[in-house]
């Protein structure tokens, strides 16, 4: 990281990008790209000590964990997925009121006999006897999945990493069930999948986060405080009453 700039990582595409931009503009901190239109650098009007980097939401989570950026806006799911010690490396400062989605365990709808995590261990054992291999769970959330399944005492499965189109894997036969993020549930339904009754792993939301592993010179700390106080003022002012508990 160069000099004393406080580096803020912001999603580079999609709804998250739009909503992040709206949030900051509404709080009197409009962002804009610098240099090339298709580039990845930016700045905040009125906050010269802040350098904005546009990255994918996943890269933001990893960069926060590794201390490559100071602050970032990204999904809680991606932050928690960075590892078992995510909270030691990333401070989840505040939820931002957008980007809500649930990380759920989902199985084919036709599995009428399966409705809870408690069914999975037994189904897994029977499956192993019948098919000679373990149930495969397709997901990009390997850490969240392992921890959740372990908490529910389910071990007879294997994770198959899936970086996209996870919902299609059971029908395609490359996995037997999935752990994926869903906002409206339409994609799950369209793929004839249903979440387990107790299969909610995480209610995720876009978060403002800060890295605990980055080096924080005084100027960066000041910039952080400035951003937080402007966001809080905007928060109090907004009629939508975004009441946040953290």
């Amino acid at each position: 990281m160069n000099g004393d700039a406080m580096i803020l990582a912001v999603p580079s595409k999609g709804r998250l990008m739009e909503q992040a931009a709206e949030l900051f503009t509404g709080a009197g901190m409009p962002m804009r790209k610098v240099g090339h239109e298709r580039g990845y650098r930016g700045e905040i009007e009125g906050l010269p000590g802040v350098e904005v980097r546009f990255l994918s939401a996943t890269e933001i989570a990893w960069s926060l964990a590794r201390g490559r950026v100071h602050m970032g806006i990204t999904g809680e799911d991606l932050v928690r997925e960075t590892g078992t010690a995510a909270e030691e490396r990333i401070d989840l400062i505040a939820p931002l009121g957008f980007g809500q989605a649930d990380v759920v365990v989902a199985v084919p709808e036709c599995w009428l006999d399966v409705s809870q995590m408690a069914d999975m261990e037994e189904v897994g054992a029977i499956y192993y006897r019948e098919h000679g291999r373990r149930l495969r769970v397709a997901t990009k959330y390997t850490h969240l999945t392992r921890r959740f399944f372990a908490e529910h005492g389910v071990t007879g499965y294997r994770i198959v990493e899936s970086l996209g189109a996870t919902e299609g894997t059971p029908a395609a036969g490359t996995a037997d069930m999935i752990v994926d993020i869903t906002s409206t549930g339409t994609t799950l339904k369209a793929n004839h999948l249903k979440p387990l009754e107790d299969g909610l792993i995480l209610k995720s939301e876009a978060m403002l986060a800060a890295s605990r592993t980055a080096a924080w010179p005084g100027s960066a700390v000041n910039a952080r405080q400035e951003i937080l106080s402007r966001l809080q003022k905007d928060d109090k002012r907004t009629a939508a009453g975004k009441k946040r508990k953290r």
Partner: protein
Amino acid sequence: MAAESAVQFEALEVQAAAITDVFKQAGYEQVAPSMLQPANLFLDRTGENLRARTYVFTDNDGEELCLRPDLTVPVARLYLERHPKADVEARYCYNGPAFRYQPGGVMGAGPREFRQAGIEYIGAAASVMAEAEVVRLAVEAVRGAGLSDYRLRFGDLALFFALIEALDIPERWRQRLKTLFPRPNAFYGLLARLSRGETATAEAEARLIGRLDPDAPDEAIDIVSTYLTRAKIPVEGTRTLEEITARLLDHAKDGREKPLSKKTVKLIEDYLAVAGPPRAAMARIDDLVEAAGLDLGDALETAQRRVDIFAEGGIDLGDTEFHSEFGRDLEYYSGLVFQIEIPEAGRAGQIAGGGRYDTLLQTLGAPQSVPAVGSAIHTERLLAAVRGSAS
């Protein structure tokens, strides 16, 4: 503690040479199976605990490989490569590294690369004698390295399964109890549900289940198929209509069963609470089983005979304890499970472990079930323990 310093490494090698000498003199052939193992073959056999901590990677040809997290499966594979018919007895010993991921990096809870020295006795016809031989050798090896302050703890998974088999309960409940035995929480949850007569099903399915007659399984498949068609749910994915219906029928049957009796639950709990000197433990189990009017057949006789044969084989029963619950979460074992441990020393005190794993070789491709029993010594822990007690 990784063998990082030269002095440490040398001390470990000296200790390992002495240990493998003990094994070789008893007729065990030293082998060196590969460190790289096919991931699928390996990971599907081991429990999730081990699976999540295995270093898996893909090579340039796209083949999924892993660094072996233990040596038992690699040695079993080696045996099958040499003896595809699995029709001979073989005794192997080994000393080499194994790899397990530990959270926290190098400063984490334990070493990521560690050494094990051990033995596998595969295809032995005389089972309890084979077990006594393996246990005796493991004890001899650690004593030879200088360990004197230890306890030998053992359990018997086959005995627990025999108890479950002997209970007068539906076969599918037996299967479930045996399946969930390695997960204590799920196991006790199931016991509680069965004794309350509960079946865990969603409401929509409860209505469907009410229409299924366990005595008419073919009709049940039709009913379920029609139900799915009407609900516009395609039968997609990797489980068949038959599998799904079979389990729904199990739920239907459960709804008609009388709940698991309090007496039975207490018997199971009392059995699992047995812990102490071997002869006293066997006597207690005998009493429990007799009071319940059950016949555990060979399994109980074998367990009792094992204690005698251990004693005759020179294993000191004074330092030995039998715990019914022991080994429940060690996945591929099928009978005897044991550990040489320093009491109250946590993981660092788990010096050696082992047991019988009769189902493993067949899952690795053996044409029939092959008896196998073995033990592995964590040589770094042994070295640390011996040095610790010397100072």
